[in-house]
């Protein structure tokens, strides 16, 4: 009732719009003819798979914290499904993928959900623009959720909400514009990032580093008590869902049903497998036996590193990238105690390091045989130049995310009077 009354003006406005202003007009209910029904079917499903990654991440992280913090850790992931969906539709998408001439930030033509349902946009030519917006929405949901692993078990909920929302708009959306927008500066420079090794993983990894530093250590760590994961089966299950969803993430980044999508699928599957084995072998050699947490961590490390490379590399190099990530990230997570920051669930060691590694190896292995249209122009100045561009994009974006995150956290701290939760919460 009340809603009905409140809604009346909105409806009237809409009736008026019906008559007068078909801005994002999806017209008579049919797709324009570039759109392919198979590609569109696949991209709906790919979006759903990426959406599923966020509950998967909740499980993955939730299993690693202490029992008393499971629920708050779950909520860190789930709340992103609520906040980011809305913010992305209102302003995020247009900042990242609105038409841009400057290469730094999109124009605001696609704000407030003004994205057509029946014609393609600039980035994906065989599916409707609104579907691409939804697909990218799922990326925007999981990226800030990834950061939550670093601040688990101690950040105030209100501070978390403010920090991630601002970070999304101020860091993630512009970075996505630079790398993926057809006119983004990094894109034009020739840096390759198929599904977000830099945009998603390196950016969130560096934000995680900033957060871990700003928040300080968890109390128990200060007291030198071990903090043990309360349920590794949950973590493994979460790892399984992440793997499954990641196929939508990487193969879906072809935004079409084509050989690139299939090669992206193959590289993703193999890198996840190789990452798992790489991490477990390293454990076997370093500590005498492999662990279940190693299996879960390794598969995620493999997936992170293959993210920028999938769709550009063949099966054997894909396997190698996963293996390298499993080995290197398993060493990287041991370093945090040396550096003295408390990145609770190793976002820096896995997503930061893995994302950076993947960005570089993408330059090393990208092949014109796999993705001629993208790799050929990027290789114009030779493989050395490509690797340099990869390096440059990664460093600039990593540094930007780190610096901006520190700043946002400092401001958040003022607003919420401290970043840390009290014992009670």
């Amino acid at each position, binding site marked *: 009732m009340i809603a009905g009354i409140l809604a009346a003006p909105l409806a009237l406005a809409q009736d008026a719009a019906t008559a007068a202003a078909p801005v994002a007009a999806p017209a008579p209910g049919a797709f324009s003819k570039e759109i392919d029904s198979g590609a569109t079917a696949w991209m709906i499903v790919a979006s759903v798979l990426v959406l599923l990654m966020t509950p998967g991440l909740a499980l993955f992280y939730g299993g690693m914290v202490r029992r008393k913090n499971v629920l708050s850790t779950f909520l860190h992931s789930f709340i992103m499904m609520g906040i980011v969906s809305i913010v992305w539709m209102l302003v995020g998408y247009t900042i990242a993928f609105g038409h841009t001439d400057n290469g730094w930030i999109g124009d605001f033509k696609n704000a407030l959900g003004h994205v057509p349902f029946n014609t393609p946009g600039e980035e994906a030519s065989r599916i409707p623009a609104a579907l691409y917006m939804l697909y990218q929405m799922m990326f925007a949901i999981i990226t800030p959720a990834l950061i939550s692993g670093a601040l688990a078990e101690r950040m105030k909920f209100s501070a978390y909400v403010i920090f991630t929302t601002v970070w999304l708009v101020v860091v993630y959306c512009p970075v996505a514009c630079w790398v993926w927008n057809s006119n983004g500066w990094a894109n034009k420079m020739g840096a390759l990032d198929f599904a977000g090794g830099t945009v998603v993983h390196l950016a969130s990894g560096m934000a995680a580093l900033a957060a871990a530093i700003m928040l300080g250590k968890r109390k128990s760590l200060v007291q030198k008590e*071990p903090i*043990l*994961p309360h349920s590794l089966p949950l973590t493994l299950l979460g790892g399984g869902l992440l793997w499954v969803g990641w196929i939508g993430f990487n193969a879906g980044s072809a935004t079409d049903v084509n050989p690139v999508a299939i090669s992206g699928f193959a590289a993703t599957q193999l890198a996840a497998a190789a990452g798992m084995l790489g991490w477990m072998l390293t*454990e076997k050699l*370093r*500590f005498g*036996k492999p*662990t279940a*947490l*190693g299996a879960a*961590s390794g598969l995620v490390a493999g997936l992170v590193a293959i993210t920028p490379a999938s769709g550009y590399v063949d099966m054997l190099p894909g396997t190698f990238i996963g293996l390298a990530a499993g080995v290197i990230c*398993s*060493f990287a*997570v*041991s370093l945090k*105690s040396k550096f003295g920051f408390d990145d609770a669930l*190793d976002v820096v060691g896995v997503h930061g390091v893995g994302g950076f590694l993947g960005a570089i190896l993408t330059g090393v292995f990208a092949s014109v045989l796999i993705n001629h249209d993208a790799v050929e122009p990027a290789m114009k100045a030779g493989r050395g130049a490509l690797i340099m561009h990869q390096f440059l994009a990664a460093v600039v974006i990593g540094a930007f995310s780190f610096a901006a995150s520190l700043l946002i956290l400092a401001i958040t701290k003022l607003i919420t009077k401290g970043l840390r939760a009290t014992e009670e919460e």
Partner: protein
Amino acid sequence: MVKIEAIIRPQKLEAVQAALEELDFHGMTVTEVRGMGRQRGATYTYRGSQYTLSLGSKLKVEVVVLDGAQEEVIDAIVKSAQTGEVGDGKIFVTQLADVVRIRTGERGEASLS
């Protein structure tokens, strides 16, 4: 009446149960506890760091018997719960002031039969 309170290794429960049943003692109450003594708890490796828990898993088995049965019960528990390695546990014996069977309200020795 005495309460015999034995801290044992979890995997020894069935053996202790069997030993007591052989002597025809069927009543007992079991609690999951964690214990520390000479023995330390398990060691875990997580993502490249090793952690040792100070406390290990144990079970507390409480058996209430008539004074006269004390020695035979202690003997049975010691024999059935022993492995000979550090961490086998302890038995604590307390004198009880009274025992009541809730079902009937019976007091003292009668309540145990």
